[in-house]
């Protein structure tokens, strides 16, 4: 059974439709990534799921019932701002959250053990993020909602934070993660892409990439090639010596280059290029 089941959700603010017939599920033991353009309805969907915002129509089932304040006991949430008390120490922050939920104080993980008496304001960002996870996990929530959980940290720290997130998943929690970045999206078991209030695509990252390509152009006269391609196609960009033209077939690109000498090749689309392709289809 799903921890969170959203069916045909519609949310309107006046004449604006923020969420337009969105359906999504989060089951125990899976990490679902919610990816969308700014203003695509991600935050509104989450707010409805948490019972903060009302649905105009559609069904939302949170842990077998309507979203309500009482359900929140079984939901953990880590916002972008992390929601920690800056002036309290690491240990005090955890004690506070544990007391609020009426649970036993959790033990500090090894990576935070040496910083128990450090004020959160003085903690490096990676440790602050780790602490926010521990605080959100201390009452053993069945559903955990994370907003860009590893933004701002370096690559090695990011992978360590994902180890902790996956640990919660492996212990049976369901996780809903909002993100804009491939390095986070690839850690999700499946991802849902929201565009203009609608689900534009869903599946694993590999599924989503299937069928999306870019034509890669290498020209001695990079400047002229770039100018010609940028006039003819959207989202053209440089990657090293190469010019990438997402979503455009090789033959069309060759035509746009005209008499300019260039080598052309087809490559799988990058994560961002998949988005550009989906946005064009919508």
């Amino acid at each position, binding site marked *: 059974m799903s921890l969170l089941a959203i069916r045909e959700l519609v949310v309107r603010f006046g004449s604006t439709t923020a969420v337009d017939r969105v359906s999504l599920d989060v089951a125990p033991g899976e990490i679902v990534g919610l990816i969308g353009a700014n203003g695509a309805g991600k935050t509104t969907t989450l707010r409805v799921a948490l019972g903060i915002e009302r649905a105009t129509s559609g069904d939302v089932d949170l842990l077998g019932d309507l979203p309500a304040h009482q359900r929140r006991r079984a939901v953990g949430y880590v916002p972008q701002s992390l929601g920690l008390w800056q002036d309290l120490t690491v240990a005090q922050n955890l004690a506070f959250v544990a007391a609020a939920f009426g649970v036993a104080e959790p033990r500090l993980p090894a990576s935070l053990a040496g910083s128990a008496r450090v004020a959160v304001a003085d903690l490096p960002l990676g440790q602050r993020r780790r602490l926010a996870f521990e605080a959100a996990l201390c009452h053993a929530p069945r559903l955990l909602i994370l907003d860009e959980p590893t933004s701002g940290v370096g*690559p*090695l720290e990011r992978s360590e934070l994902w180890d902790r997130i996956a640990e919660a998943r492996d212990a049976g929690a369901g996780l809903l993660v909002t993100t804009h970045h491939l390095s986070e999206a690839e850690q999700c078991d499946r991802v849902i892409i929201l565009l203009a209030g609608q689900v534009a695509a869903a599946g694993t*990252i590999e599924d989503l990439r299937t069928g999306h390509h870019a034509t890669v152009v290498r020209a001695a006269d990079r400047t002229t090639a*770039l100018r010609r391609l940028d006039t003819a196609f959207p989202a053209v960009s*440089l990657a090293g010596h190469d*010019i990438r033209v997402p979503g455009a077939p090789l033959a069309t690109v060759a035509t746009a280059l005209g008499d300019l000498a260039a080598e052309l090749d087809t490559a799988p689309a990058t994560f961002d290029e998949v*988005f550009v392709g989906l946005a064009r289809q919508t």
Partner: protein
Amino acid sequence: MTFSLEAVVVRRHARTDLDHVDLAGRAGSLSAVVGGDGAGKTTLLRTLVGALTPSAGQITTPARERIGYVPASSGVYPDLSVAENLRFSAAAFGSRGEGRDMRTRELLAATGLTDARDRLAGNLSGGMRQKLAFACAMLHAPDLLVMDEPTTGLDPMSRSELWRLVSIALGSGTAAVFATTYVEEAARADHVLVLDRGRTLVSDAPAQVIRDLPGQVVSLPGATPEHPSWRRGRVRHAWIATGPPPSEARAVEPDLEDAVIVKALAARMASLPEPLR
């Protein structure tokens, strides 16, 4: 070279924020500075634009008025309209008259902000604000464009738009440097500099960083105590520094993310006392 930093050291409050860092770029090149919080990215960029004076080292850059800078805060004035922000930047760089008006029209069109010219910058979406910041920094067609985490908070579409604009600038000969916390973004750069607590962890062309990876990277179904590993989607990648990989390992084609993690692991191991390695 349009700019170069040689053995630059920045010390502040008894702390070394940058420790003998080198970086250089020629006209039309894109350099990425990668690292987490506290790695020294902003310090490096601020030193490059002349906002910080290094404690030691050599810096060569174009004159201040030939540099465009997009700070992490975007640096646009929220209480001014889009057009007013552009006019203010133009005035600051002493550009006026017909030349300024033409350049402003060009940049408004390129950034898709023409219809938003009278909107207050404070009311723009994150993507539009970032594009405005880019336009303000590019108004005087600088030789060097420096951007501090220009894609933070941007969705993939706004990001693609921004890279399109940066690409056009590169195509016209501007050298660009940007900071990011995401390795995947650095893959498009000609040169990637990874910083770790003010020190250089990696500095090379992305393809070369992958080629120079010590040992080998394999994929494993789960973590093993013998080899350091990290999560890549539903599998783990592990670094086999020396010797044969475990029998359940599968060969993988490492990417820049893997290569940077291996370098970070190797550096971490080298900093441990001998018995713990």
